[in-house]
Structure formats: C-alpha cells, structure tokens
C-alpha cells in the first residue's frame, strides 16, 4: 500500500526530513538537478512569453511541476525511453531534445519536430493516456529481446480516468513490463479538481488493483523524486515489474494561455504553493550544505538564459510551409491518389506563382 503521506526528503525550507526508507540521492545528482531545474523554469517562462508574442500557438506550462519532469528524465539511462504528455516539454528537453524542436508542434507545424529515436523520447500527443499502452509495448519488446530498457511513462491526474490508463497499467503488470508510470497530480484537469476524477484514497492506491506497487511522493521535492523514481527504475530494470508513482505537485500557471484559472481556483491556494517551490527548496538545501556556490548559481542562470535565447531565436523564425511534405509521410510510398493530390496543390501553387 502507498504511504499515507507522500515521501519527502526535504521540507519546503530545504531541511532534511527523516523517517523514509529512501536514501538521499548523491550530492552530484542534486547539483545537476538544480541546474536543470533553473533551465526548466526559464524554458517554461520563455515559452509562456512567446505565446503572448504570437510565436507559439499554445503552451501548456509546467511552471511549478519542473522537479517531476527533471527527475523523470534524470533517473533514466541512455537506452531507456521517455513517453511525455503535451505538458512535458521540460522532460523531453532534459532528455536531450532541442527545445526549439520540442516546441515545433505547439508552434503550429504539422509534425512533432524531433526524431523520437535519437533520444528515445516518444512524440508527445494531445489525446490523454493513449501513450501509456505504447510505453508498455516498447518495454515489453525490449524485455522479449532481453534488453535492459526501462520506460518512463508520464501522465497527469486527469489522464488516470482514461481507459488507456487502466489498460496500460493492467497490461504492464500482467506482462511484467519494465515501465514506471509517473502521474503528475497537479490537482486539476484544466478546471476539474481531483475529487471529480477519483474517489480512491489516492491515485497511487490504484496500483493495488493492478498488482503493482504504488508510491506517493512530494512532487516539489527534487531529492524525494530522484530517490523514489530512481528506485522504481532500478526495480523495473531488475525484472521486478512496473510501478506507479504519484507525484503531488501544482500547476502555478493556467492550463494554457487560453485558460483562465481564476474561474476555478483561489489566489490563496496558488499562493500556498509558492512557498513549496521546487527550486527555492533545492537551492536552499544545497547552499546550506555548501554544495553550490554563488558562482555556480550564476553559471546555471547563464546557461538558462542561453536556452531561452536559443528558444527565442528558433521560434522567431517563421515556418515556411511546403505543402508537398503533407503528402510525403502518410505512407512509405505515397498512393497514386496522394500523388495526384500533391500534384494538384503543386499545380495551384505554380499558377499562383505565374500570376505574381
């Protein structure tokens, strides 16, 4: 059974908390995670600004949830796979995906932007939970070949209500597929609170029904996330099967720029989470222990600025639509009918060109 209280290693002030069976991550991992967190926050806020400037069609911000995503990527090995949702740009970037490529779809282009096979990051898609059975398939294929691959599959609290969440967890457990299911429970599915998604004691409790361990973790505590997710990954890699992890966190900004969060939650509720911010918590902890200097923090900030600048540059370049591409990847070889349709568009464009 999941613990009644989420696993916490650092309190909101960054002080160590005892009483959990999880060992603290090594110092180097925590320092590395802080750098990634600072870049992640900058990425979120830059992307949010770029929406207002019309450079992104839409951006589902993960401001406040960055620790979950940084940890999810950081505990994986090179050959492992990550299955993100549309709110997990940060996780994909932490895995190595170029931020401009990661935001291609949200910019309004027709494809996912990156090569999923390069960093083993599945294309993010907007249907909810449909990526979870894919994660099970990747993991089970690896297991059939005797490969040590582990798959980190992400979804949100709303996604746990979808049928594919159920089917994926059930399949993973039945086939002992090496998958870690990380639910970022940020309290809301756009506007609908968790109480309307489930009557279960917690989302982690759902693991019981599938015959897999469920664990709850403070989703704003980087140390706890690295410990819990790291243990789940190693357990899966050792052949002990899948695990469900529920990270309790909070989306500090609206669902997207098109959403008005004041219609469904109080300012006071948001303010309470400011004090639990994952960056201030980890930074305070590392400074207190002398593991990070002001110079290092300045370096982290500078690295974050470079990512933001690259994002601005990349997204400020306009998409140059080539309609021929729309027909090129529907099948390995375009059908006769698609070839005719591509020729029709090319002919239209040719005639437009002649008129200019």
């Amino acid at each position, binding site marked *: 059974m999941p613990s009644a209280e989420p696993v916490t290693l650092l309190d909101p002030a960054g002080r160590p908390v005892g009483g959990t069976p999880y060992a603290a991550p090594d110092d180097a991992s925590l320092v590395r995670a802080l750098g990634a967190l600072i870049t992640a926050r900058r990425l979120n806020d830059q992307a949010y600004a770029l929406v207002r400037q019309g450079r992104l069609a839409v951006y589902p911000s993960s401001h406040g949830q960055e620790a979950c995503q940084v940890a999810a990527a950081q505990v994986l090995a090179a050959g492992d796979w990550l299955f993100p949702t549309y709110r997990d740009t940060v996780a994909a970037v932490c895995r190595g995906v170029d931020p401009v490529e990661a935001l291609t779809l949200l910019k309004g282009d027709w*494809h996912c932007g990156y*090569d999923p096979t390069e960093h083993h990051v599945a*294309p993010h898609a907007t249907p909810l939970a449909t990526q979870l059975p*894919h994660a*099970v398939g990747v993991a089970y*294929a690896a297991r059939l070949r005797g490969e040590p*691959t582990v798959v980190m599959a992400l979804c949100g609290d709303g996604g746990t209500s979808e*049928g594919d969440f159920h089917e994926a967890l059930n399949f993973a457990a039945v086939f002992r597929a090496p998958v870690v299911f990380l639910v970022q429970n940020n309290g809301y599915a756009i506007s609908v609170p968790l109480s309307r998604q489930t009557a279960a004691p917690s989302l982690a409790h759902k693991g019981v029904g599938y015959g897999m361990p469920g664990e709850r973790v403070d989703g704003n505590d980087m140390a706890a996330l690295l410990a819990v997710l790291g243990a789940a990954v190693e357990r899966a890699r050792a052949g002990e099967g899948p695990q469900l992890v529920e990270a309790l966190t909070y989306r500090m900004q609206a669902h997207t720029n098109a959403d008005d969060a004041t219609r469904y939650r109080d300012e006071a509720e948001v303010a309470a989470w400011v004090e639990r911010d994952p960056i201030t918590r980890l930074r305070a902890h590392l400074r207190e222990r002398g593991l990070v200097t002001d110079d290092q923090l300045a370096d982290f900030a500078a690295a974050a600025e470079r990512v933001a600048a690259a994002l601005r540059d990349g997204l400020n370049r306009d998409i140059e639509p080539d309609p021929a591409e729309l027909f090129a990847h529907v099948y390995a070889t375009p*059908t006769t009918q698609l070839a005719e349709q591509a020729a029709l568009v090319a002919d239209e464009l040719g005639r437009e060109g002649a008129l200019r």
Partner: protein
Amino acid sequence: MTDHVKLTMAQALNRALRDALAEDPSVVVFGEDVGPLGGVFRITDGLTADFGEARCFDTPLAESGIVGMAVGMAMNGLRPVVEMQFDAFAYPAFEQIVSHVAKMRNRTRGRVTLPMVIRVPTAGGIGGVEHHCDSSEAYYAHTPGLQVVAPATPADAYTLLRAAIAAPDPVVFLEPKKLYWSSEEVEFPTGAPGIGRAVIRRQGTDATLIAYGPSVPVALDAAEIAGQEGRSLQVVDLRSIVPFDDETVCAAVRSTGRAVVVTESAGFAGVSAEIAARVTERCFHALAAPVRRVTGFDIPYPPPKFEHFQLPGVDRVLDAVDDLQWEQ
C-alpha cells in the same frame, strides 16, 4: 520449389502466420484467445505450441490495450500481428488506430514507422448475433495512413497476409468470416500480386461487377448465372481497398461500359459510394449507364433469421445488371 495443397481460408491464414513467424524473428502474434485455444476461428491454431509463448500469446481482454501495446512494440523493432476477435469488438481500439496507428509515420516525418497488422474477422453471413457481423471498412478506409485489405480467396488470404506483415505501414486486414471455410487448391508460391492491386477474377464483355472480400463469391455466382443467360459479366476483385487500384478498376469498366459495385457494407457514405464516384469521374464517357450499387441496407446488421434480407445476393445483383440500360 512449388507445392499444391487444398486449403480453407482459415488454413491459408494460419499458414501465412506460421511462415512469417518462421522467417522473421521480429514477428509476434497476440490478442484474445489466440494462444493455446488458437483463436475463436482457429486462425492461430498451434502457433503458441510451435513458436512459444514469446511469439504468440494471449493478452488481457482489452482491445485498445492490444493495439496500443502493438504500437509500442512496432516502435521498438517488432512486427506485431494482432487479432480483434470480431469486427465490432475492434471499436474500443478505434482511438489508437485512428490517432496513433495511422498517424505515427506522418507525425514523426517517417522517423517512427509502424509495421503492424490488425486482423479483423469481418462481416456477416454466419448467423452471428449482434456485434459479430459488422462491416467496418469505411471507418478504416476513411483514415489516412492505414492500408485496408480484404481477401476473397484462400490463395489471396495467404499472399495478402504475408504482404501485410512485411509492409512498412500498418494494415487493417479484414477477413470475411463467411469465407473462412471456403477452400481451393493453392499453389505455392502463389504468384499473386501484393497490396494495392486489384485482379480480374472472371473475364467478361458486357458489364463489370466490382467487389471485394465477402462479396466476391456473390459477384462470381451472379456472373456464372448471367453467363448461362447469355450475358457476359466481368468480375473485379479489389483485394485492397486502400491503396485503391484505380488503374485496373477503370480499365475494366472502360472495357465493358457498364458497372455494378457489390458490397456487403451499408451503402450510405460507404466504400461502394467511393468506388462508384471514382469510376464515374474517370470513366464517364465510356459508360453506357449510371454506375449501380448493390449494398447492405443502412440498418444495424440484423439478427440471423433476417440476414438474408441484408446480404447482397445473386438475384439482387442480377436485377441491378438488368437495370443498366440495355434497351438502346
């Protein structure tokens, strides 16, 4: 080396799976009851025993999970062949099929491809109860990114299933249930063309019947009777709904100047409508009469004692042929 063997369509499909499993270690077969039972239609009979649990296995009873897991396995180097136990039981997998199976190649600009086959026992004529006799091809054919195939003979069942498993793109493989027990002498290698080509099943000069899957034997029976009555009907078997073989179909229709499309699926907004439209657009000046359609009615598939009203039969096809403005 060639060999001749009399096979039912079910046996031909089993042999195709067997040969694919033997030749390609990346092929895996899974679904509901496909393991020790061999599938409710015995298409996977003996595969788990002969190739092991890792190559042919039962899954939990959840079609979206089956197709979704196949997507992931195809992403990671395997060639899954999954069975949807009955046509109407595939609907829980519809989102996976439409939003992911069909779109992964496009979404990733060809970086991630899904060589997978979704086998769907299809259509009626077997006295099945509700939800066991649907003709769902229009849903799949309407979805860009899917190939949709329907064999009508044991030889084609073998050839097309092998081609579907070897194909670089996902294939929805529609198996006409009522033809599972039809048999013929099959010669290996079959020499039949792969996916995307129609064939002329019967030569004829007066009119062209266009059919696929369960309707091909109906068209052939109609042509046989018409021949006895002095009218020479040509029969085109599409074999592949997507990609559609405009070239063969239109050449056939132009050669006779008259066409009847025969499908078991409902006519409204169906594959038959697409065929009639394509033929009319491309062959208008060669046509002596409007293209006629003989299809299932636009009603939920009726129960066993009523299904003979629903299924296009020889008489209904011949009546349509009679209407093709022969008088002038």
